[in-house]
């Protein structure tokens, strides 16, 4: 929208000098690379550690539970018992 305000022409002609270092772009990429090497942002790192700890605990708990369930084979317990009380079988 044209307002005929004299400041419009002044603003249009205003061209401020760039105030950034010449290697600005390179510095940005360096910082991104450094952050990625460090394992993400400062917020993401503790979060990942928590997730890893929970996953590790889950694996251990599930492993322990499977061990408890797997061991309860009555057939093998029975066979082990009858082998245990038979001196001839044990001597073989």
């Amino acid at each position, binding site marked *: 929208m044209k307002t005929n305000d004299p400041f419009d022409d002044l603003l249009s002609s205003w061209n401020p000098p760039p105030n950034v270092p010449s290697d600005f772009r390179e510095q940005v990429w360096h910082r991104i690379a450094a952050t990625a*090497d460090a*394992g993400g942002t400062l917020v993401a*790192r503790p979060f*990942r*550690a928590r997730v*890893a700890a929970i*996953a*590790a605990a889950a*694996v*251990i*708990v*599930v*492993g*322990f*539970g*499977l*061990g*408890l369930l*797997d*061991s*309860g*084979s*009555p*057939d*093998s*317990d*029975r*066979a*082990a*018992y*009858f*082998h*245990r*009380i*038979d*001196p*001839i*079988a*044990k*001597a*073989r």
Partner: protein
Amino acid sequence: MKLPSLALVILATLVAGLIAYFGGRALQHPSHPLDAKAEIRWMRKEFSLSEANFAKVEALHLAYIPRCDELCMAVADSGRKVRELAAATPVMTEALAAAIAEDEHVRGECRKALLAHLYETAAAMPSEAGQRFLEMALPSVLSPGHPDVHDSVRH
């Protein structure tokens, strides 16, 4: 987290999981040969034994195991003697015949001891459970040393 350390954490977690698995397995199913009480734990559920019945069965088992081990060593010795004498001579000798007779005698003692223990154990259970126990157990006494007998117990 860098890639090598991530792989290390995953590996350590898997190892810990495996250790937990075998820990749980060992806890539920002690396989130590000296853990005589654990060997009969399955019977409580299998034969629906009361605390009193199970205590009797357990006491009988614990009392029998030393005798069983003793007989086991005796039969192993007599069998070894037969094998050694048989290998040392091309003909039947008196010593070999005596060793065979001794081996048969020891094996007979083993069968008698085992059978007596099974009858005592069955008697410590309720009647129906004791009968079922004997049906399950007797093949191992009636066919001693048969390799399939203990496998047949599984079925």
